[in-house]
């Protein structure tokens, strides 16, 4: 049994049944799950959560599907690391990294797809579908396999081999679409309307997006049941950014933490920065962009939650950074070299944005700040080619090693 009671339009607040619907028929506003918060308050406590599984399903009371029938491949409850070295490099004394690279398919998308696939199966769907350039496709393929559902995954025809493999290993029907980003996007929007399948980020999007709340739940629990002072979150569609804060608000509503005063700041790549651009211009209207960035997992030029992201930036006294491709690569390296976390390009965007926002005075050195690292680095190795320290190549002799090592550290005495 779930505590969800209806779908509700975020614009006009009309209510709809808990079906596979995503847009209000009257105003075209997006639909969101509404809950019976009295029931949640009655059933949940810090103890019930602590006694739950070490996965996102420990927050079952806050999710819109029956947890006893969960499609569970172990998503969630990822480490929160006190990033002392990175904090020192950036001038932040209380910096934490939420390391979502360690999810089953190595990105935070496992959270949203876990919820979407569970709800889709409950609603009677037998096919799970998506259009993706990487992480989402991997996660949909894996969850469909575990749920014994058919996966139909649409990808651009020129996707890198590793990303294709990360989906195809799970045995989905993989469809390569010839055409540019806009053409693929348009076709998939049309297909989502034409086929009665569960397109995870289209017709079951209200359920799908709820999975992102679990990042907010986990961070609060891992901090000892308190909200952070400041969150820095990469913005693609904007859903993750908005839902992390919703998670914190719901914990307060359930009486598990004090009312959050968390400032929410966003991170975007300069090559796809509709939200950061609007924010810099002081506008609440973003203009869609054509993405051109190495941070492909953030390359959403027309973000579904772009407007709500701008509202949240304004309402929480946040700020939004945009960083260049070179800064992204430097951010990936800095995170790896200081904290031992190898993140994909989106993680580089977050770290580079942390640096930018701190330098500009938007993040204070003593704020308890959490940066969200959403995907693993092995998915996007191409931007690092030529940017890393080369290996020493030696003959199998001690002398050869000493010669090579001495060239790296000429002042250090070598035995």
């Amino acid at each position: 049994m779930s505590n969800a009671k209806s779908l509700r339009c975020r614009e006009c607040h009309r209510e709809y049944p808990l079906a596979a619907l995503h847009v209000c028929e009257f105003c075209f506003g997006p639909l969101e799950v509404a809950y019976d918060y009295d029931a949640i308050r009655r059933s949940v406590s810090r103890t019930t959560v602590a006694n739950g599984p070490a996965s996102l399903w420990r927050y079952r009371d806050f999710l819109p599907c029956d947890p006893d029938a969960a499609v569970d491949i172990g998503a969630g409850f990822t480490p929160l690391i006190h990033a002392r070295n990175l904090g020192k490099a950036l001038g932040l004394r209380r910096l934490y990294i939420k390391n979502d690279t360690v999810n089953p398919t190595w990105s935070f998308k496992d959270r949203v797809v876990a919820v979407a696939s569970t709800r889709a199966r409950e609603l009677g769907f037998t096919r799970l579908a998506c259009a993706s350039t990487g992480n989402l496709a991997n996660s949909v393929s894996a969850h469909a396999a575990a749920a014994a559902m058919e996966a139909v995954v649409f990808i651009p025809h020129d996707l890198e081999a590793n990303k294709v493999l990360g989906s195809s290993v799970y045995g989905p029907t993989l469809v390569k679409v010839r055409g540019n980003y806009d053409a693929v996007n348009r076709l998939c929007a049309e297909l989502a309307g034409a086929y009665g399948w569960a397109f995870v980020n289209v017709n079951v999007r209200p359920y799908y997006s709820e999975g992102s709340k679990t990042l907010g739940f986990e961070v609060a629990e891992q901090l000892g049941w308190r909200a952070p002072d400041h969150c820095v979150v990469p913005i693609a569609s904007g859903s993750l950014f908005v839902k992390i804060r919703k998670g914190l608000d719901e914990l307060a509503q359930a009486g598990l933490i004090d009312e959050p005063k968390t400032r929410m700041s966003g991170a975007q790549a300069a090559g796809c920065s509709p939200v950061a651009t609007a924010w810099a211009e002081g506008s609440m209207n973003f203009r869609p962009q054509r993405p051109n960035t190495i941070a492909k997992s953030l390359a959403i030029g027309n973000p579904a939650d772009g407007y709500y992201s701008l509202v949240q930036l304004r309402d929480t006294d946040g700020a939004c950074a945009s960083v260049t491709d070179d800064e992204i690569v430097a951010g990936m390296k800095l995170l790896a070299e200081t904290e031992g976390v190898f993140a994909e390009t989106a993680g580089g965007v977050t770290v580079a944005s942390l640096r930018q926002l701190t330098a500009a005075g938007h993040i204070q050195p003593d704020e308890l700040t959490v940066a969200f690292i959403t995907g693993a680095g092995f998915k996007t190795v191409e931007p690092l080619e030529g940017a890393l320290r080369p290996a020493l190549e030696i003959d199998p002799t001690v002398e050869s090693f000493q010669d090579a090592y001495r060239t790296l550290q000429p002042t250090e005495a070598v035995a």
Partner: protein
Amino acid sequence: MAVRRVRFTFPQELIKEPIIYLLGHEFRVVTNVRMADVDETTGWVVLELQGDAAEIDRSLAWAQARGVRIDPVIGDVLEG
């Protein structure tokens, strides 16, 4: 009869042009504005278009050729 929901985004130089009126005259397509926000520098309109599917496609190609950006109402479907 097909129904298509789209979002038009107008660049500044097209703000004063009666694009939607002209589209309704040039093509056998019924235009229904459902949401909009237009100011002096930019603007977007969410439209419901009703007509023959091929005629809707032609009307969208015409608007695009005039400089209007056309997106699905639900935002980008292709995710990372």
